[in-house]
């Protein structure tokens, strides 16, 4: 098939890691009316029953519900604040994806279950009810994902939304940071019905490449996953785990890490050891925020960073109010 389509102008999944998470816009309006677009739209319509169309979604990551203590004494406050911010966005997202470590692990099964229930309770206050999850090691590694499945369903799966193929990929529940041969074979089979130009979004917990292996920022068989994805020209990988934003390109694919909703990690290029960024009582949500990327025009993307703040709680008095107001 002749490729008339300019890939860069076709699929505008504008994303960037984004503060409390990420707000992405899939900008079908940038597609124009080219013949190639019509061809691809037709292919996608046949492949998944729905042609690509503009939409917005949000990624949240690493809420670690149940974690409460140094270096971050605020428990679920940032998660709750993020929900407030999302609910007030002028353009409501159509779905929310969570890229792992929804809860913090515990040795006690009943405590883990309580944390998963608490996560779902907070998430249920989102105005957007179309939510999808993938586990992090704190959710699923301790029991191979058994309890996680009871609350959130399968750990790897796929679905189609507005003409985009989403793939949730579990790279944690085996204990070791790996997807595993069985799920890689599933991925390969899952993709066979799509044309090479199909817009594909993979969301997973760990980076699928060696970002910083000695900090455990890698997936041991990530290269095999990327080999399966490499023929596809419009692949976006969204992940968490590293508690900071990062953007990376591998071939046709772009990989975006979202910040966490609990303590941040520093830039590994700047510090020798993996230690969380110190809590700043004057700015309790420092390093958390939202970046809205608008790439609906053909020009360079417009990026707006909005730091997650606590307007009602400011200064020294404010942090005391925040701590007293019911830290989970």
């Amino acid at each position, binding site marked *: 098939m002749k490729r008339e389509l300019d890939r860069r102008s076709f699929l505008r999944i504008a994303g960037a890691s984004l503060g409390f998470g990420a707000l992405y816009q899939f900008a079908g309006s940038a597609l124009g009316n080219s013949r190639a677009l019509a061809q691809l739209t037709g292919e996608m319509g046949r492949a998944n029953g729905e042609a690509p169309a503009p939409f917005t979604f949000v990624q949240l990551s690493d809420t670690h519900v149940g974690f409460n203590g140094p270096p971050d004494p605020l428990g679920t406050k940032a998660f709750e604040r993020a929900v407030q911010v999302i609910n007030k966005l002028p353009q409501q997202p159509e779905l929310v994806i969570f890229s792992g470590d929804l809860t913090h*692990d515990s040795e006690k099964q009943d405590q883990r279950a309580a944390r998963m229930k608490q996560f779902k309770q907070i998430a249920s206050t989102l105005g957007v009810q179309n939510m999808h999850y993938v586990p992090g*090691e*704190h959710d699923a*590694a301790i029991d191979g994902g058994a309890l996680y499945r009871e609350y959130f369903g399968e750990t790897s799966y796929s679905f189609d939304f507005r003409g985009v193929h989403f793939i949730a990929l579990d790279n944690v529940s085996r204990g*070791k940071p790996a997807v595993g041969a069985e799920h890689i074979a599933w991925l390969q089979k899952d993709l066979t019905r799509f044309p090479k130009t199909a817009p594909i979004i993979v969301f997973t917990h760990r980076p699928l490449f060696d970002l910083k292996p*000695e900090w455990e920022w890698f997936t*041991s068989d990530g290269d095999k996953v990327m080999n399966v994805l490499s023929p596809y020209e419009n692949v976006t990988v969204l992940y968490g785990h590293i508690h900071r934003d990062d953007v990376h390109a591998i071939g046709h694919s772009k990989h975006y890490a979202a910040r966490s909703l609990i303590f941040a990690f520093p830039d590994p290029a700047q510090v020798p050891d993996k230690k969380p960024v110190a809590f700043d009582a004057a700015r309790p949500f420092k390093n958390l925020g939202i970046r809205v990327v608008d790439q609906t025009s053909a020009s360079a993307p417009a990026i707006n960073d909005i730091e997650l703040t606590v307007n009602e709680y400011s200064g020294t008095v404010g942090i005391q109010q925040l701590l007293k107001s019911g830290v989970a």
Partner: protein
Amino acid sequence: MKTKTKRVVIFLGTFALSSMIAGSWVPSALAQDPQVIDITAKRFAFSPNEVHLKAGQPVTLHLVSEDVTHGFFSRPLGLDETIPAKQSVDVKLTPRTPGKYSIICDNFCGSGHGNMKMTFVVE
């Protein structure tokens, strides 16, 4: 005894004798067997947490888990091992390049897992 085996025995005997005459074969030659280094994994630390190795010198790492399953991982050293719960594994290693290498547990073992690491110093 088969002919091939006989040849090997004769060759080794001749080699040993000539080495002894030359004064180069001493019991210390047995030390060329890889040095065994015992490393214990227990949530959430390795013991010892630092080991010094010589570049080019083979060693056998005797890895023991005292509790749950642990990992023993270093990308630059080519280590990607699993130490099953309350079991041991032996791993051969010949470090080639001097430097400091961080070894991490990459098998999730609990809340302190993220800080479970040790260092190989290759000299």
